[in-house]
């Protein structure tokens, strides 16, 4: 076995195990901060898998957008909510929910057993595959219009998030809960 494939196997095994464990931590922990840390580790391990697939540009995007923005946003909201972010557990309706979750896990494992035997021939790594330059040329070439539409979507999302998250009708101050005049907003 050539050393390169041993390295590949080791990298894949490490990051795959880390991704599965951190995904389980993300959905199973009780304290939401621990869920957020699980998501953080999950996103990092997926970035490692992207490197092993020679998707360097998307590794950077994954680190910047997920680690830098999404996980931090989750942590901000958890800290803003404080102890209330940990919803009290209740056992009502636990059986149907558990059946649904078990069915999802079973379907995922079944599908994984089906697709694990897919062995298409891997072509040699072409020069420049996945780098910022080549992906950027396609992004600003054939994918120009979707790219601009994504910027419109993000602008709309920012405005929508502001509109939804500010105080109700703008009349109640969030910190005190008392009606405030418009000047404090």
């Amino acid at each position, binding site marked *: 076995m050539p050393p390169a494939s041993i390295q590949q*196997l080791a990298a894949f095994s490490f990051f795959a195990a880390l991704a*599965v464990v951190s995904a389980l931590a993300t959905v199973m922990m009780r304290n939401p901060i621990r869920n957020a840390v699980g998501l953080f580790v999950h996103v990092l391990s997926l970035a490692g898998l992207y490197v092993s697939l020679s998707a360097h540009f998307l590794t950077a995007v994954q680190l910047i957008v997920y680690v830098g923005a999404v996980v931090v946003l989750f942590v901000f909201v958890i800290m803003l909510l404080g102890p209330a972010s940990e919803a009290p557990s209740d056992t009502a309706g636990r059986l149907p929910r558990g059946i649904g979750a078990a069915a999802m896990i079973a379907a995922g494992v079944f599908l994984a057993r089906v697709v694990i035997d897919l062995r298409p021939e891997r072509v040699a790594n072409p020069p420049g595959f996945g780098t910022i330059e080549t992906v950027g040329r396609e992004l600003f070439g054939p994918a120009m219009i979707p790219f601009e539409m994504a910027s419109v979507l993000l602008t709309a999302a920012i405005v929508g998030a502001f509109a939804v998250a500010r105080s109700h009708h703008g009349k109640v101050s969030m910190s005190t809960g008392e009606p405030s005049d418009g000047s404090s907003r």
Partner: protein
Amino acid sequence: MIIHLGHYLALSCVLFSIGAAGFLFRRNVLISLMSIELMMNAVNLTFIAANRWQPLVTSADGTATAAIPHHGHLFTFFVIAVAAAEAAVGLAIVLAFYRLRKTVRTDAADMLRG
């Protein structure tokens, strides 16, 4: 043992099912949103792995060219953009919901019930 496309796809299936199970089982809105992020990340892994094992494009005279299009990478890029927008709007809705109901349990979201 050589890592093939099937290994990445199987890993992606497992990660997606963990996210889907968490979305169904947990009643915390924050954890539901995190489960959605898990599912989107699993799909991104599928796109990137399939892009890596894409067959060579053969030109008219039969010679294989090295230019592999990055369609999977582009899809992943846009999925990440949509996921960021979804997280921002979703967490804003969580804040507004908490201000109304003082809880983040999904059962408490019954304001549209007649």
